[in-house]
């Protein structure tokens, strides 16, 4: 790659390193692995940059970060999919607003982090992409390579699970 192209690459993609690390760290749950994933993702992005036709650079980079993280699991033999995902079954939820629901706002960062880390990775990633990275459904569909409908139902289920996990933590119940 010539210096002009390298400069264009750096200008386009280095500003998204903060997001790249955040996603990698949530997916791998390890500082060390997240750094390796980010470095490898940038090297891969560098190689494919010729095929990047402009557009959403952040979503493009996060797609590679996600792919790299999943490859890392295959490498160590840890399954990326930790639970069978049944996309069609809605999470059971009663309509009434309990006092616990409003308590969620009082949850500490530590409690939320534990609850989110405890989610299966497919659920964890949609919550991180939506709530922490502020991606639109369309961008999330691009990053996860899923249809938008699946992104929406997965996000709904992820939120319901996260809420339940958080309530259990706040209650001091089973973690």
């Amino acid at each position, binding site marked *: 790659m010539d210096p002009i192209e390298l400069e264009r690459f750096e200008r386009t993609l*280095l500003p998204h390193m*903060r997001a790249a*690390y*955040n996603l990698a760290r949530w997916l791998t749950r390890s*500082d060390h692995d997240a750094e390796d994933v980010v470095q490898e993702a*940038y090297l891969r992005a*560098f190689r494919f940059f010729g095929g990047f036709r402009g557009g959403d650079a952040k979503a493009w980079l996060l797609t590679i970060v996600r792919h790299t993280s999943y490859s890392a699991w295959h490498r160590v*033999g840890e399954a990326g999919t930790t639970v069978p995902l049944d996309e069609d079954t809605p999470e059971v939820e009663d309509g009434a607003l309990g006092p616990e629901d409003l308590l969620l706002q009082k949850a500490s960062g530590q409690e939320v982090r534990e609850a989110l880390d405890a989610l299966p990775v497919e659920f964890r990633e949609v919550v991180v992409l*939506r709530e922490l990275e502020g991606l639109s*459904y369309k961008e999330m569909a691009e990053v996860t390579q899923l249809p938008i409908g699946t992104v929406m139902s997965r996000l709904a289920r992820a939120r319901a699970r996260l809420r339940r996990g958080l309530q259990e933590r706040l209650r001091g119940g089973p973690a």
Partner: protein
Amino acid sequence: MSCGDPAARLLEAYLDGELDLVRSLEMERHLSECEPCSAALRRQRALRSALAQPSLYHERPKGLENRVRAALGKDSKDAKDSRSGARGGWRWQAVAASLPVIATLAWALVVIPRAPSEDELARQEVVSAHVRSLMAEHLTDVASSDRHTVKPWFNGKLDFSPEVKDLAGDGYPLVGGRLDYIGRRGVAALVYQRGSHPVNVFIWPEAETGGGGDGEWSVRGYNVIRWRRAGMRYWAVSDLNLPELRELAHDLQR
């Protein structure tokens, strides 16, 4: 707008700012009339504010950017050195100094960058893929010495099915497989081990007419062997010595 699951899904889309104006207004009207739905919205907002705490965002460590820049610089420089034929150029300059008669010709060779041939670029690319697989400690996606595990692993990941052989009997045990990208296409990488030397064998389908003939090269200190078999292009890359790498290539062509 009636309640039930579809409404609940729209509610989240409303929360996420994904509804168009007309639907948003409909949703707001509905929310003003429907207590269960507005309770559900409050519940969603409570969760959202719990997730909005800045401490949940994992900030990248200091030094990561430098580390990435260094890796990129190295990668870019490797490719550039090989492309401009820098070493060959220096040799020519020495010749020019001792033979003034052809100095003009030699000068032209030094200053006019030689366009790399397609063949040369291909060699550079497979060697880069090999180096990267070692550098990022990303040798295999599927680690297995069982070809019946490795071969099916590629199913659905590639638009072809590579032949997977275990050569443990010949002293080249299969270590695993990996998905890689060369020439802007997904390729299969089979990893073999000879002593402490890993060997990458890259495989992809290639037309009879494309990609040049068989051959052997030394690129940046790595030995490279290329051959074609049954409509597939094979590249073997390793720091292993050439005779042993040849033997591996030979065994794979059996």
